[in-house]
């Protein structure tokens, strides 16, 4: 859910609201269609097993998109995502519960912009960080 976050209210070390996802095979197919990424390891179980995978796996880029959704919800309509990125360190599979999370690591003002740096990640149902990343956002100021 989109909210309004002001730079002054953010504290280093604080966690931002998390975003929970329960991907299904159907969702992977929908996203394959929406993005145009039709690599078969994301919807064809036999193909995935033939590639030494445990079954179909969640698209890395879909996971990065969910991290962008979490950031977009947090910064609100008056905030801006300046940059973000993540690495794909572990595979995620449909049926698991994936949680997007983030903590504030730094806040500062630069060129009149009120900026916040975050460590962001996705963790799987066992709490393992499969998709670690970082972000820089600009927030509206009360000043």
């Amino acid at each position: 859910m989109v909210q309004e976050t002001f730079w002054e209210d953010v504290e280093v070390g604080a966690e931002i609201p998390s975003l929970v996802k329960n991907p299904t095979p159907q969702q992977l197919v929908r996203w394959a269609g929406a993005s145009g990424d039709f690599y078969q390891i994301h919807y064809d179980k036999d193909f995935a097993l033939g590639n030494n995978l445990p079954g179909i796996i969640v698209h890395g880029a879909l996971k990065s998109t969910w991290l962008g959704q979490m950031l977009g919800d947090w910064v609100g309509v008056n905030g801006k995502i300046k940059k973000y990125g993540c690495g794909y360190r572990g595979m995620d599979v449909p049926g698991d519960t994936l949680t997007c999370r983030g903590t504030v690591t730094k806040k500062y003002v630069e060129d009149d912009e009120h900026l916040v740096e975050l460590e962001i990640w996705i963790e799987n149902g066992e709490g393992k960080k499969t998709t670690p990343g970082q972000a820089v956002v600009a927030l509206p100021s009360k000043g």
Partner: protein
Amino acid sequence: MSEDSIITEEMRQVVGVESEPSIYEIEKEPIRRWAEAIGDSNPLYHDEEYAKKCGYDSIIAPPGFVAQYAFPVKIGKSFRRLETPLKRNLNGGNDYEFFKPVQAGDTLSATTKLAELYEREGRLGKMLFQIAETTFKNQNGEVVARARYTGISY
């Protein structure tokens, strides 16, 4: 360069060479379909009236949309991953930088270059890292976004 390097002089010459541009239009319906597929109900991606009230001309593209929609078309036209003796490939990561909002009605051009090329000895043997960087410009020639993709071959 060590004797067993898999990076050839030919491969090195490709680093930094910008591809031909791909040109494409940003349209409302694909944005909405994308947002629905990921489960994002942010009205900026769905509701044109709402987006206009927020100061935009139309609905805007969600962060991942610009760089991913209709992959692999939406990279520079002539860009190709390097052929290597390594057979398996992994998506190592994605990094995005955003400079201007992308709105429905915009026409983007994307050019891609191999920005970095290096190898490492990993758990799985020799690994080759190809960092592809795509720059997106709108119809006014403004750079709206940049995306880096880390391809790992092993």
